[in-house]
């Protein structure tokens, strides 16, 4: 981890702007630990940091971008030069521009406390001891467990700074840690797998026994899983699956997709897009969300954006570019994939508003359904533009209010618009997950199950 002052470096870049030129610098510094345990020993341990800067230049409406995986002054100067050169080749767009103080004034930045000094103080031996304990807890607790494919611990401390030549500045930092175990169960030719995990901002948020219990439960309940005959039936999404579903759906709320005619919700603002019980919001100001952040990828304060209220679409998420183009205001939704890309539009903390019943109560009230524990091919089988949704699924049949036989090697299919209108229940069991979406139990009234 370099000791460069990130904010000062970004200020120097922004101050380099020439007359008629806008410059933005986005600097990132991370410090990470990644630890894998296998078969009772440390298999690999990596302790390292990644630093980098992305520079955006806009001149005469033309935008250029360059990045470097270094905070070295000479490299940063070369990066500014590359960004300028790239701008010369792009086509002008009157809507191009950096965030202005007026954009910043559209909301007050939330005061978020996402940094835990205590995580930085945890020594490596404690992390190793934790992960070894997790590995052995999975093995020891149930004799049907044949092994642990991997037990992992990871943490990171991330600092971000943004300064632009309009005088906009933002600095934020956060810590995160997570641990997971991937268990194997079964005898002879049969193998079933299941995953347990936990994430938090500080080390004490992680409980090895709880992670092990989750991995064991999700693995052993799949023993004996078989393909079943295809039919249409209600489907219950596990919270992890709901989070993936929201990840696919998120593109539809993106004003960039909308302006290019590629959103499922084209021309649908004010219309019913979901069942009346559906409430969806993107709220990076909620510190419990792992995507929480005070400022977006252009330095604009984040705020809570309600996207669907009682099934009715409220609007799209904007950065300053899409806002200017659409004649709207930014929603503080500029999103960057690290320092290597320009700010697009994206969700940061997307979630359904929780309902009233937890998963056990929901299952108890179902007569015949498929509970989906995990899906596969979420990227290859779904398309946020056409709305097609067809994924591999593993889970359990639900019969007369209880889990019944485990099921594997089936697919579930529908379309995203139908799934939203077919939602019959939203669970109370909100689960915060690393990434930009949260999960909870979700019941879709009907999907097509394909099997034997």
């Amino acid at each position, binding site marked *: 981890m370099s000791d460069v002052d990130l904010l000062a470096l970004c200020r120097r870049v922004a101050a380099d702007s020439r007359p008629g030129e806008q410059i933005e610098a986005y600097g990132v510094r991370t410090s990470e630990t990644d630890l894998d345990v296998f078969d009772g*020993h*440390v298999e*690999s*341990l*990596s*302790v*390292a940091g*990644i*630093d*980098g800067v992305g520079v955006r230049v806009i001149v005469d409406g033309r*935008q*250029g*971008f*360059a*990045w*470097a*995986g*270094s905070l*070295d002054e000479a490299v940063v100067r*070369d990066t500014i030069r590359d960004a300028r*050169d*790239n701008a010369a*080749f*792009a*086509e002008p*767009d009157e809507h191009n521009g950096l965030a202005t103080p007026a954009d910043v004034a559209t909301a007050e930045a939330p005061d978020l406390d996402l940094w835990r000094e205590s995580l930085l103080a945890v020594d490596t031996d404690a992390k190793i001891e934790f992960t070894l304990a997790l590995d052995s807890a999975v093995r020891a607790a149930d004799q049907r467990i*044949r092994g642990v*494919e*991997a037990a992992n611990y990871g943490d990171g401390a991330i600092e971000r700074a943004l300064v632009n030549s309009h005088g906009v500045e933002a600095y934020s930092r956060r810590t995160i840690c997570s641990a997971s175990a991937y268990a*194997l169960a079964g005898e002879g030719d049969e193998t*079933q*797998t299941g995953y347990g995990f936990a994430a938090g901002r500080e080390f004490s948020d992680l409980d090895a026994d709880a992670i092990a219990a989750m991995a064991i439960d999700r693995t052993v309940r799949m023993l004996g899983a078989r393909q079943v005959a*295809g039919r249409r039936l209600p489907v219950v999404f596990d919270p992890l699956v709901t989070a993936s579903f929201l990840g696919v759906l998120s593109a539809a709320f993106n004003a960039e997709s909308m*302006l*290019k*005619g*590629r959103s499922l919700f084209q021309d649908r603002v004010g219309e019913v897009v979901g069942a009346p019980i559906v409430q969806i919001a993107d709220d990076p100001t909620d510190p419990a969300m792992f995507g929480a952040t005070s400022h977006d990828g252009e330095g604009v304060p984040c705020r809570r954006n309600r996207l669907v209220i009682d099934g009715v679409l409220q609007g799209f998420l904007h950065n300053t570019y899409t806002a200017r183009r659409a004649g709207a205001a930014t929603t503080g939704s500029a999103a960057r994939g690290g320092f290597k*890309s320009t700010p697009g539009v994206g969700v940061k903390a997307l979630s359904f508003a929780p309902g009233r019943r937890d998963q056990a109560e929901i299952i108890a009230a179902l007569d015949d359904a498929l509970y989906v524990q995990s899906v*596969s*091919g979420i*990227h*290859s*089988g779904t398309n946020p*533009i*056409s*709305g*097609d949704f*067809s*994924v*591999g699924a*593993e889970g359990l049949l639900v019969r007369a209010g209880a889990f019944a036989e485990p099921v*594997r*090697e*089936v*697919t579930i*299919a529908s379309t995203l618009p139908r799934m939203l209108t077919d939602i019959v229940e939203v669970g109370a069991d909100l689960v915060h997950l690393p990434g930009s979406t949260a999960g909870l139990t979700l019941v879709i009234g009907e999907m*097509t199950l*394909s*099997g*034997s």
Partner: protein
Amino acid sequence: MEPVTDRLATSDASPLVPREALDAVLVAALRSGGEFAEVFVEDRRSGSARLDDRRVEELVSGRERGAGIRVVNGDTVGFAHTADLTVSGLEHAAAAAAAAARGAGTATRTIALPDAPRAPDNDVIVFPDTVAKSRKIELLRQADDAARSEGDAIRSVSASYAEARRRIVVANSDGLYATDERVRTRFAVQAVAAGDTGMHTGLEAPGRTMGFEFFDEFAVADIARKAATQALTLVESVPAPSGKVPVVLRRGAGGVLFHEACGHGLEADLIQRDASVFVGKVGETVAAPGVTLIDDGTFGREWGTFAIDDEGQPARPNTLIDNGVLTDYMWDLVRARKAGRASSGNGRRETYQVLPMVRMTNTYLAAGDADADAIIADTDFGVYCVQLGGGQVNTATGDFVFGVTEGYLIERGRITRPIRPAQLIGNGPAALHDIDAIGNDFATWTGTCGKRGQSVPVSSGQPTLRIQNLTIGGTAA
């Protein structure tokens, strides 16, 4: 403004790190014990340009340079990386890697690297970074025009150009000292068509391990027309069937099936973790007769081609399944050393910031002798798969999926209506036994393979073939 020529315009022969520094770093890495140390140095330059909505939106340049150092001590690998390539920066990272490897001794090892590195000939004809940016933009426009001219139903077109140039140096305590320079070029077009059945997308995205001469082999207008035609075809699509069907995979369309159905399960790291259905199956029949599967990092200029892997081992063709019989797994250096055998040249890493793993390169099924048209004519009812959108596998259970992005119904031996995109699901060992026809044609597919968070370029290939029984996840009754 006139084009500016990049300062690193031609092949750069200057070493990334002096040889003496590599010696010193390996000694430092093994100072507190351990039986193996390696330093991997990388300098990567990338460039891209994107057109969307009729406008050249953005050009991006990136650079990344650094070193990853690992120390193997018993069962533990310690790893650290740094963007500081000075001797002190590297020694600092070496000490961190040594500490992470949990060594406790004080040993002094001498390292005997050869004076000059083993360096493969570079046969790139035109380094993409020497080509004017205006020329790349012209290609994007040609693609946009070509895609839009396919029909009024084309609503939106995006095109992207990408180039990457990656120099690497690998040195290890076994005395290996090797370098390589890899150049990759890719062009992608996505088209969106709209009709009564909603919006549909078509994507074509070939890539090769070569320079700008890529465009002598691929005309951007052809790439664009394929993407547009696919989107337009889907406007006419009917819901895909649901349930078990015979599936005919057109040449090139289904290589990813083998990548998922058995490729990942043959990676030695997953075998050693007991997380593959192919554990203990070497020498056994695992596929139908006639199925020969090869992974080959030297296969032409394909997307997964390189001269040496990221552990300095030469790429080579490896036969994994020979006429239905499993012959070997794929290996990286550290696991091969432990097993007392040679690496198969499959040790790859996304960047210097992560540890290498066993990865595929170009994985393909060898051609058979059936006529492709005859395979279709011989299928009473089924799905003809022309393009796939990637897949996923659980190697421990063998269950895999892959998305059909362009497919058709086969009815009474004839290709009839296009179907909406759907997922196919199967079990690897079962699917390999269910292959009952292998064509005499062949084509490849360009892809990106993800494993444990790392992405690497790969290709897959296969002749037209039929699998008797896969489950397709459509919504048709």
